């Protein structure tokens, strides 16, 4: 088992590194085929107020006067040393733009993740422990959650809770209350697949022998739910966490726009309208890093937690 696990861990890590690099190259190619000379357009935009020297410096920095492949080499080399370049709109280091925006997005995404898990567990619990008719209703919630666009949820929540019930104010989008509602907006679509997996897992596990045995010993349903079911049925969802991270990042673009929060989503939006290629490049590659890292951890941890997970995935991935 042990040498096998080491080999597995090593291969997975190497694969992860390759994926990150490829993601970088792919984004670079996608954003570099921008129609027209977008980079120079952004630089020359008088509104950005860059001086000729600054423009020259940026052009030289990115090798904008050289072929695309050379630019890619330059850019990739820097990325590997952790250097993300400068924004074409503001001339600020991209790492600073992202660094400034990150705490807000992390707070939002973190709260959303917690809320999504709470929703999912509540729905799964309801699906299992409510009488048939109600259980059916609860089971249909995930499907409904998956059908409502993020922006509609946000608009309804703001209308109801900010303007009608005064639960939070739109002028202070970073207040705990405003963050809570933004997080709910982001959490609802994320909780749906999580709930579906939990329900399915619970359905499966509750038919297993040990559940029957535990019941026969007179443990309450709720106790059983917690003690015996949540842990094993949550296992498949560990792999999902990685997917969810992606959902949270993508969803933050809309949620931050609607709630007027400054975060990664807003940075992305500004970069898109301002054709700010280095910023887009950095955000996309960093989110790939996050995704791959979370995934890697999940892959490395799950064989240790649950021996039923086969290391076969090395070949399978």
């Amino acid at each position, binding site marked *: 088992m042990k040498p096998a696990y080491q080999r597995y861990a090593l291969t997975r890590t190497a694969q992860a590194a390759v994926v990150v690099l490829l993601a970088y190259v792919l984004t670079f190619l996608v954003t570099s085929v921008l129609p027209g000379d977008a980079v120079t*357009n952004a630089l020359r*935009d008088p*509104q950005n107020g860059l001086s000729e020297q600054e423009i020259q410096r940026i052009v030289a920095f990115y090798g904008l006067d050289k072929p695309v492949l050379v630019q890619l080499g330059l850019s990739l080399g820097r990325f590997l040393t952790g250097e993300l370049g400068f924004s074409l709109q503001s001339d600020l280091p991209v790492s600073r733009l992202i660094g400034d925006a990150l705490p807000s997005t992390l707070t939002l995404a973190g709260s959303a993740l917690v809320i999504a898990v709470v929703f999912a567990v509540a729905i799964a619990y309801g699906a299992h422990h409510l009488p048939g008719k109600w259980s*059916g*209703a609860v089971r249909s919630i995930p499907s*409904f959650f998956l059908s409502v666009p993020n922006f509609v949820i946000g608009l309804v929540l703001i209308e109801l809770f900010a*303007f009608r019930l*005064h639960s939070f104010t*739109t002028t202070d989008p970073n207040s705990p209350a405003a963050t809570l509602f933004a997080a709910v907006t982001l959490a609802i679509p994320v909780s749906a697949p999580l709930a579906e997996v939990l329900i399915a897992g619970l359905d499966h596990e509750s038919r297993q022998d040990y559940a029957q045995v535990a019941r026969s010993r007179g443990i309450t349903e709720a106790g059983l739910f917690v003690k015996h079911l949540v842990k094993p049925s949550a296992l498949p969802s560990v792999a999902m966490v990685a997917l969810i991270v992606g959902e949270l990042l993508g969803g933050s673009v809309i949620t931050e726009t609607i709630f007027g929060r400054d975060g990664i989503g807003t940075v992305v939006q500004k970069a898109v309208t301002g054709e700010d290629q280095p910023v887009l490049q950095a955000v996309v590659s960093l989110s790939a890093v996050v995704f791959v890292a979370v995934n890697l951890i999940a892959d490395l941890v799950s064989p240790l937690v649950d021996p039923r997970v086969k290391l076969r995935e090395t070949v399978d991935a």
Partner: protein
Amino acid sequence: MSSALWPRRAFLATVSAATASVLLTACGGATATGPSGDGTPVDGGNLTFLIQGYDTGWVSSKTSISSYEGNLWGQITDKLVYVDEKGKLSPWIAESWEELNGAKEFVLHLKKGVTFSDGSPLDAAAVVANLNAWAKGDPSRGVSKVGLFPSTNFLKAEAKDAGTVRVTFSSPALGFIATLGYHGCILLSPKTLALPVEQQADLKQEIGSGPFVVKSWKQGDSYVLEKRKDYNWGPAALGHTGPARLDTITYKVIKDTSVRTSTVASGQAEVAFNVEPQEIDSLKAQGFTVGTPRYLGFTDGFQVNTGTFPTNELSVRQAIQHGIDREEILKTVYTGDWTAATTFLQGNVPEAGDYSGLFKFDPEAAKKLLEDDGWKTGADGYRVKDGKTLELTLSPNPYVPSTKAEDELISQQLKNIGIKVNLKVVDVAGYAAVQASHPPLYQTSRSFVDVGTVAGVLTSQNNGEDWFRLGTSDKKLNELSTAVATASDRDTRKKVAGEIQQHVLEQGYFIPLNQLVQRLYLISPKVQGVQYNGLAYANFYTAWIAK
């Protein structure tokens, strides 16, 4: 199992939307009580002002100042002269002035004891530094002049003593004094003016003498101003002396128009900038004040690029003028607070004439113009000549409320005469790129205080802004522009200004739409004493919040 689920889910969907809409129609009026207090001003209070964005930076030396930044500049700086809503000039930092030598020489007498917020004196030397910056800028440092300042004939400004400044011009500059009240001519500390452009972008470095000072800010998010306790030099015309009544003003960025509106409507903030015009009537009915001041300047309309397809053809320009139904625009997109344009100058500009006959709505005439010029209707209803479709792309002006709806309607109207108009919606940052690309039609919104300054934008003479991309090719326009800028008496100037309007409109260089209300203020009933100047900026120096 699942057969019974559908109705319930559908019900859920309907319920959530229905609850929301019921609540919505029950509307925000609940919190908007009528004007409170007995009308006596009270000191203290904090005001939150919602605005759509601060994206264009704080460099004060710019050819023109954005409507958004302008709101904040107005509270932290003073001007030499005050211009009221009707264009009337009155003393401010300049206590009095003399016009000498056929308007070629001016002497300004300054108010004594005025200081910048860093304690340095606002004296004649400081005023001279400001005048030089407005007139000439400093190209070597990338500092641009103020676009509408009469700089072509500006000779020099000199301090005669600590309280007197003499300004001389090479030819008559009738617009000089009025321009001192323009929102681009804000008085800043000489220290600020001497800074490199990059450092001017730092709001902390922008030292003014206004009733408020910047206390703290988070770029692109919120800006807190607090009152200067020793301020005692506001314009006499405002009828208030001493410091401002409000303790603080917080400019808070909220991009979304509906959120700005609803936030004020639900009592969570006091003022919202640029709400949707079509919402005004219902907001007024709920007791809110909606300020729709009209500035002195150009009307809402299009600068035409005469150098590009398809507006390089006179027939197309004229057809567009006659193809637009301004009545329908006013009735649909705006409210009774708006009026139609009679020329390309706002109605409160004394020199504005009535040339509406030159661009009256007449679709048949428009069609005939195009038909006679060889534009034949193609299969899809759009006109074609030499295999090219009569087509152009238009970007609604993001500085003016409701231009998206307005331009959508114009696109429908021009479709009727066979012109295809594509819309490209952009934000403030994107609009600069649109301007730089010189589209066939560019929707302008520009204020000025004196008609003499328009000469600086119409042609490329004297580094003019060359609005119509004519360069100096239109001899008549060149001559008229120069004549307006250098006229020695107001009667002559009014006559020449009339000729310019006639010529520009006949040639279809400008397509007027309606009189512009660029700055719209939705104000909570609690806030009183707000005054507007001739550039349609709200002044909160005199405002207070009723208890």
